[in-house]
């Protein structure tokens, strides 16, 4: 991105990052708000950021951190809301299979959802996901494994067979 303007960077990455964030937050409004916040932070330090190898990763990382912070802040309120309205409907109409995926994704804990999106949608290797989320690789592997198992249950797909070794 050397010598690129912030506007060019913004135009080139906005939609891609929004698609990733919307799966993490589950709500387009929240994703847009977080993304604007992250882009705002990038804008005021663009002179330094434009020399980075991947300013997009910086914005994604900031947005994910903001998402985590926001989720933590509103955990109690969200818990109360979830009790009243367990499944938050999407803001757009979805086909049955996508609605299943949406609900299964929404049912994951935030950490697992972030790991799943970064690994399976963004396509980051496990090590990079760990670096992105500032977590040990083992933790990310565990979150991915649990997340995938939960998604499999939600999508009514048989999960990986577990072999028990009885002693």
């Amino acid at each position, binding site marked *: 991105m050397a010598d690129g303007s912030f506007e060019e960077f913004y135009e080139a990455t906005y939609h891609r990052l929004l698609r990733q964030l919307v799966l993490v937050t589950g709500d387009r409004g929240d994703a847009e708000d977080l993304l604007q916040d992250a882009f705002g932070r990038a804008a*005021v330090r663009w002179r330094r950021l434009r020399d980075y190898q991947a300013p997009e990763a910086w914005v994604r990382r900031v947005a994910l951190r903001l998402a985590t912070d926001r989720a933590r802040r509103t955990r109690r309120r969200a818990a109360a809301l979830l009790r009243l309205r367990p499944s938050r409907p999407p803001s757009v109409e979805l086909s049955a299979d996508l609605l299943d995926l949406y609900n299964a994704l929404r049912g994951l804990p935030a950490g697992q959802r972030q790991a799943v999106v970064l690994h*399976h949608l963004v396509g980051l290797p496990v090590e990079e996901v760990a670096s992105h989320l500032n977590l040990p690789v083992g933790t990310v592997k565990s979150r991915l494994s649990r997340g995938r198992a939960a*998604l499999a249950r939600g999508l009514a797909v048989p999960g990986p067979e577990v072999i028990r070794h009885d002693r």
Partner: protein
Amino acid sequence: MTDDLDLRPRLERLATELTRDALAPPAAAAYRRGRRRRRRQLAGAGLLTVALVALMVWPGAGLLDRGRPTVVPVAPAPRPTTPAPKLRPLRPPQAAPGQSAVVIQDPPLGLPGKMHTWLTECNQVKFGHGGREFQVPSFTIKRGDQRISWYVYPLGPVGSKRYKGPWANIQTWTEDPNNPRDPGSFPFVEVYGPQVQVHLSKPNGRKGSIVGPYSIVQGTTYKTLRQPTGARVAIAWNCDAPPGVVPP
């Protein structure tokens, strides 16, 4: 990680559906948002600074931390019996890092007019019930059988009955292996009273000077043997030695 759920295309489709018709707000909006946030941060930092400065200059600030007073207490004036002697001018000496230096006018008790030596560890010491003081003690100087050391209490003790402000003393005694005596039982030079001036380069008392008329006091009994005259003592100290500066 394997993707036997075929997650990627499904996630792609879901993301596409959820962000369908999404329009990117103008980049200028992000700029404005970032600048607003930065202004808020700067304003918050400014407010915090103002609050901290206000707290530091507040007259009651000293009460919050009595161990490190920002205002050096002044010793109370004794009842006027005789007019105070006219003091002779004396500039405090320079003290190298980790050292202390003394200049005495009309040196009593066989003391030299000028001395300097290393400081031992400057620290807070306790005495009595709840009393404490920050002390700046010197190493002991040897001159034949004579031994000399001095102590400065630049912040004044807390909880002392005798001393209500900054003070210093210069002790001298003789070493006699056949007749060992407590150094504290010898007469000593005391610098204390309303005419004593203390200058602290650092408010915590680790660097500064004390200048004032001196009296001679008998150790143990604390009886004044000689009232102050116009002669003065100046002691400078500097506890803050950079790393690597160690006493020999």
